[in-house]
């Protein structure tokens, strides 16, 4: 465990010593503040469009951070040959992967906390309320979704050689699941047979990231999600993380590093 945490620590250190995160955060803040300054029919209580915009930016930024950082981890270790001195220590490859995963996940968690604090402040500045539990549910579900994405990208970074192609593929897959995942079965029913089965298999095997996207509930002040279903969603997320990490570990164990 200590080993995994040490590896994770290096990942987090790298992230906050690079400037990507700050740039994304400041850009998000600037865009939101500019949008907030637009007066619509002289009514300064209009907030939901701003909440939606801010959450959209937070989602995009968090996905960018999660995917680009994770996709870089193992290839950079290979390219810079830091993998060699690292694996020459009593570290298993599975531990290394877990450390990388945990590092990226925690780093994204820190980023999310910053983003959601800003979001909460922005919303509270007009609504004068802090639905803390709702924000907690939204942020934690978001974080678990990022966990699945990170595990998936980590597996991808071992399968695809180039980090850029891995990032692109992951962006397309994640975006596709978020936008279409819920309807893949309906789409399948409109298709002829061999393709239909393929679509259905995809539908039943992909991680349904859209469960974790509860932005609509936050924007429109819906009541809390039932805690039982919330817990089930977290377990569902962990399940997929384990699946992807196991896959990654199996792939990594067979690869030679030199």
């Amino acid at each position: 465990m200590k080993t995994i945490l040490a590896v994770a620590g290096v990942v987090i250190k790298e992230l906050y010593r690079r400037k990507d995160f700050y740039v994304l955060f400041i850009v998000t803040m600037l865009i939101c503040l500019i949008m907030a300054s637009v007066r619509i029919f002289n009514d300064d209580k209009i907030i939901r469009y701003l909440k939606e915009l801010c959450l959209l930016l937070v989602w995009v930024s968090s996905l960018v951070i999660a995917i680009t950082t994770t996709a870089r981890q193992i290839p950079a270790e290979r390219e810079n040959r830091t993998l060699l001195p690292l694996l020459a220590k009593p570290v298993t490859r599975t531990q290394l992967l877990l450390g990388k995963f945990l590092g990226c996940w925690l780093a994204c968690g820190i980023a999310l906390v910053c983003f959601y604090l800003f979001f909460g402040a922005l919303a509270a500045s007009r609504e004068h309320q802090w639905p803390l539990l709702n924000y907690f549910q939204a942020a934690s579900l978001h974080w678990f979704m990022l966990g699945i994405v990170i595990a998936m990208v980590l597996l991808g970074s071992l399968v695809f050689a180039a980090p850029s192609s891995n990032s692109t593929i992951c962006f397309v897959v994640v975006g596709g699941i978020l936008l279409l995942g819920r309807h893949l079965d309906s789409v399948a029913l409109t298709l002829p047979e061999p393709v239909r089965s393929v679509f259905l298999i995809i539908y039943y095997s992909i991680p349904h990231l859209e469960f974790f996207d509860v932005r609509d509930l936050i924007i429109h002040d819906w009541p809390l999600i039932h805690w039982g279903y919330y817990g089930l969603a977290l377990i569902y997320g962990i399940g997929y993380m384990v699946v992807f990490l196991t896959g990654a570990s199996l792939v990594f164990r067979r690869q030679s590093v030199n």
Partner: protein
Amino acid sequence: MSGPRIQIWFLILLLVVCFALACPLQSRFVAWPGSRANGDVFAITLGESRKLFANEFFVKADSYYHSGFYPTIFDDNRAFKTAHMAEDTGAVNSQNHGEEESFMGPPRNWIDAFGRHFMPDRHTHLDEGGASGDLSGSEGVREILPWLKLSADLDPQNVQNYIVTAYWLRQRMHQPKTAQEVLLEGLHENPGSCDILFELGRLYAESDHDTNRAVNVWMAGLHNWRPVKGTEDEVAANNFIYEKLATQMGAEQADVGNWQAAIQWFEKAKAVSKTPDGLQQMIELLQQHHSIKPKP
């Protein structure tokens, strides 16, 4: 020490030259007939495709009206063909039928069933308190305005935008002045539009209590009205606004005791109406009234 300083001065000089060049170029560019710069920022960036976006944002506003409980293209959206926020203004011909609550149908499988716990799940309207059901929050309907504004900016020819915006500004947010500005702007973009004139008349009558002005506006609307040849829906929408205008005129005439004129207007409305029964009753009622108290 002098090296970097010279470079900085050089950069500043270059910037100044660029700005100086930009001024004459800008005026030339604007004068050039093929320039898109004559339109607004959306016209420049999006060109003709902005109508598509405009429609998208109009739908977005309606989805806000429902606090996000809204069908996608994969759901059964027969009950949402006409935006409810427009339908509720009473100024738009509704084509909705079917169930409003169950557009998603029964859960198709466990994934679908589970996913529904993470989505808005009740049919509500913002002017009735929205998702929280708090009726004192009926001003919450303000949240649809940004999208309507955006939609109107993208497609100024869509008259529904102005009507819906003005109606809610007036009805729930108690801003008749702003509503009037919106309608006048709409009228500026769409001269003589019967739909906008109808809503403008209602605003004069209901908010300003200026019946004369309202009648004038409605008369202008009726004057501008032409039968259209097109799809069934287009004809229906066109007839609907005529019916509305004529009914309003009839009601105004009835109010001031012009029974004969009122009946005439109601007859005209009935001629184009899809639901003439109500109007027929109204006419009969007036006729009875009329026979009891014949005009001197």
